[in-house]
């Protein structure tokens, strides 16, 4: 039995000690190092890769390497970056619009079967779309979309997670009274959506937008399947193309990988707080 007076505090109220900071710093280093090292190689010449102990200071060849990546004859890197921007932007805009619309309907409107339909949405959360990939390829073939950006965009236009997330947020933040008084004033449902719902769910739109953009930008398997053999894939496929062939030049591969990562790093830098909140809230609610 301890006789000393124990400081009875929950962890979340206990100021972190030196050890906590030290361990956190180590995990931060672990998290950041591969990215940093990607940059180091992306800025170096060929020899840096084979150095032991490893090179840890960036070289001065960044622009040269980047230029090389963009001027390659068999990988159209610039075009694939543009494709990634198009796909991610369209998918994000569409997810935000359709999911907030459906979320609003499920949260605040009364209609027959809404309970059962919402249950269906929740059940589909657990279905990994990836498993239907062979048939999806056949469907896209019938539509004549394989090899085009449409094939990459279409399956991402709505997500069950988005509908679910929006519904939860709207239930909690949009007051019923506000919706009702707008109705009394004669506003149509779409008008209520545009003037009341959208302005009050801006934070949720930011979160879902960031998460959707990141996920779409990073997708690899489906773009690889449907866009293989085309000259203009997405940037993820283009990076993997940089690494194919008999003689791989890693400073090029990692320069390309780094360029394709930068947009997401910028997003994390700008919207980090939102992304963190989105992930943490997603957990509490689910």
């Amino acid at each position, binding site marked *: 039995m301890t006789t000393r007076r124990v400081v*009875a505090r929950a962890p979340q109220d206990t100021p972190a000690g030196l050890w906590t900071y030290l361990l956190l710093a180590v995990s*931060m280093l672990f998290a950041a190092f591969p990215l940093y090292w990607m940059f180091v190689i992306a800025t170096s010449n060929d020899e840096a*890769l084979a150095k032991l102990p490893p090179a840890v200071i960036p070289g001065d060849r960044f622009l040269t390497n980047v230029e090389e990546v963009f001027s390659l004859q068999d990988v159209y890197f610039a075009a694939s970056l543009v494709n990634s921007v198009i796909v991610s932007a369209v998918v994000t805009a569409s997810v935000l619009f359709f999911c907030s619309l459906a979320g609003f*309907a499920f949260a605040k409107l009364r209609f027959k079967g809404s309970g059962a339909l919402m249950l269906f949405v929740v059940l589909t959360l657990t279905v990994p779309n990836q*498993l239907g990939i062979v*048939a999806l390829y056949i469907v896209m073939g019938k539509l004549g979309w394989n090899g085009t950006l449409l094939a990459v965009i279409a399956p991402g236009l709505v997500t069950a997670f988005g509908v679910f997330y929006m519904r939860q947020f709207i239930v909690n933040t949009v007051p019923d009274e506000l919706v009702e008084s707008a109705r009394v004033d004669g506003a149509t449902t779409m008008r209520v959506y545009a003037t009341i719902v959208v302005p009050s769910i801006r934070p949720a739109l930011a979160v879902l937008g960031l998460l959707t953009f990141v996920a779409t930008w990073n997708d690899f398997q489906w773009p*690889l399947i449907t866009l293989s053999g085309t000259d203009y894939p997405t940037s993820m496929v283009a990076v993997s193309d940089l690494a194919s062939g008999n003689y791989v030049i890693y400073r090029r591969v990692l320069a390309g990988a780094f360029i394709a990562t930068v947009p997401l790093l910028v997003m994390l830098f700008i919207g980090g707080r939102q992304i963190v909140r989105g992930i943490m809230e997603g957990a509490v609610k689910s």
Partner: protein
Amino acid sequence: MSSTRAAPPRRPPAPQRGSAGDRRMTWRDRLYRFDMRYMPYLMIAPFFLLFIVFGLFPLLFNAVVSLRNYRLDDPTLPYWAGMENFSRLSADEDFWNALYNTFGIFLLSTVPQLLLALLVASLLNRKLRAQTWWRVGVLLPYVTPIVASTMVFSVFFSRDFGMANWALGLLGIGGADDPIDWRAGKLQAWIAIATMVNWKWIGYNALLYLAAMQSIPRDVYEAAAIDGAGPWKQLWRITVPMIQPVVVFTVILSTIGGLQLFTEPMLFDPNAQAATGGPDGEWQTIAQLIYKVGWKDLNLGYAAAMSWALFLIILVVAGLNYLLTNRLSGGRR
């Protein structure tokens, strides 16, 4: 995924303009009635239409394709194959090898990943200076494209000048004279790939745990501390049991993700295009084998059978997981 109560039914807000007996409805009334009655369905329709066409239908249609001969390079084969694809599957060494690899990598990644996430979360679950900064920091791997990080890790795990071997050499393992060839055997390759998966997902899972930890009532800890429970005991006896639903959730999430592992094993291979997962399939996963069978060997019917089988495996494993984690962490209460 438990709190899915339906929206509480509310009274229709606005008063009905045209009364029931009034036959002649004005245009406004019609619009109003349409808006009240059908607008909600129009608003949810895009989700259901798109999901059914590009999500649900392919999944079910996969089952049909798996019973067919569907070769991209030979359309003359008889239409139906019956159970042929499945019986071939059961005797296919590649399939069992890939299944074995998938489970091996899955175990090596899920267990350490979730344990480390728990530790990181409990570090973050203190009063910290620059709190947001730390939380955003652990998400760096989450926003890094797997394609990019896998390229980096492939270089780390190269035999002769790789950083992994160099670091292990400093610890007296392997070293320059006897470097580990990460692509030469199952275990090494599994460890390398699992490291990539762990790196990517620890921070994400840590945030999920952190969210749950912060909602644990404070007085539970106070009582435990007065009874003399140290931080370690508090973590295992209070925190973990109290965040059990989130633990179950993350276990299921990482099961679904882990059994579909594709990008890391693909790009770990210097000869990625072949999709063989090493010269002898040392680290070929099921998702990778499906890609190879479908788009390299052009046998979509057989690939569909494989993905349908994987679907069933995931269902079973996720269910088992649910029961197990529930029991394990529930028993500690």
